[in-house]
């Protein structure tokens, strides 16, 4: 049952991206930016946690989850360390993802060539 919800909500979120592509012709960079900002806002107004408890990976795997952890990190760090937390918290919380993406991209770029279509 849990998996069904993950599939449905994850699918719906992605379909929303496709709707944006079809209706506004925006490119993938802008779509990613939109969804990250949606995530930040959802977390800022405390809506992300209840959504996440329900949809799990369905909302965490889309880039919305990335935006939410940025905001969550910043908010949490502000509460524990004060003002400096606003600057350190966001990247700290998402460091794993960013570092992984950069590291894997770098390694594969050393090994592989781009192929024509």
């Amino acid at each position, binding site marked *: 049952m849990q998996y069904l919800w993950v599939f449905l909500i994850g699918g719906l979120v*992605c379909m929303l991206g496709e709707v944006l592509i079809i209706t506004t012709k925006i490119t993938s960079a802008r779509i990613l930016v939109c969804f990250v900002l949606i995530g930040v806002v959802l977390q800022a107004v405390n809506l992300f946690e209840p959504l996440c408890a329900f949809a799990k990976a369905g909302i965490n*795997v889309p880039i919305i989850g990335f935006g939410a952890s940025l905001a969550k990190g910043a*908010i949490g760090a502000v509460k524990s360390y004060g003002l400096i937390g606003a600057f350190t*918290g966001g990247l700290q919380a998402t460091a794993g993802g960013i570092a*992984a993406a950069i590291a894997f991209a770098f390694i594969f770029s050393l090994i592989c060539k781009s192929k024509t279509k």
Partner: protein
Amino acid sequence: MKNQQINQKYNRYVEARIPKTKAWPSLFNSFWVGGVICLIGQGINDALLYIFPSMAEQTAWAWTLIALIFIASFLTALGVYDKIGKFAGGGSIVPITGFSNSISSPAIEFKHEGIIYGTCVKMFTVAGPVIVCGVVASVVVGLIYYIAGLI
């Protein structure tokens, strides 16, 4: 002024001539591919928690995302991810795997211009704005919470 009117008229005419594609197949494809990617994420997460029952949920999520990022990066390197993307559109752009693909693809593409000026500089041509906007937004949210806490 007259030129502007001609241009507007022409652009309206072009807009009307653009072939209309059926939206439903691409919406459906983005739906189920996106859903499956999320399912894979949930599967990895549950498996991690099953194998390492003592793992914190936060850590398990971090590993899940790293695993998905690795898979997407690997598929990009194999030249498969762009084919998935062509088929699924938003279904493979919106998940974290799309973020990984947007970092890996320019890194691989521009390797011929050298490691520093090719790979490293061009790595963020697509994903750079995501990190920039996300981080700026999170700083703003942090500041708002700090100010709200003072009051």
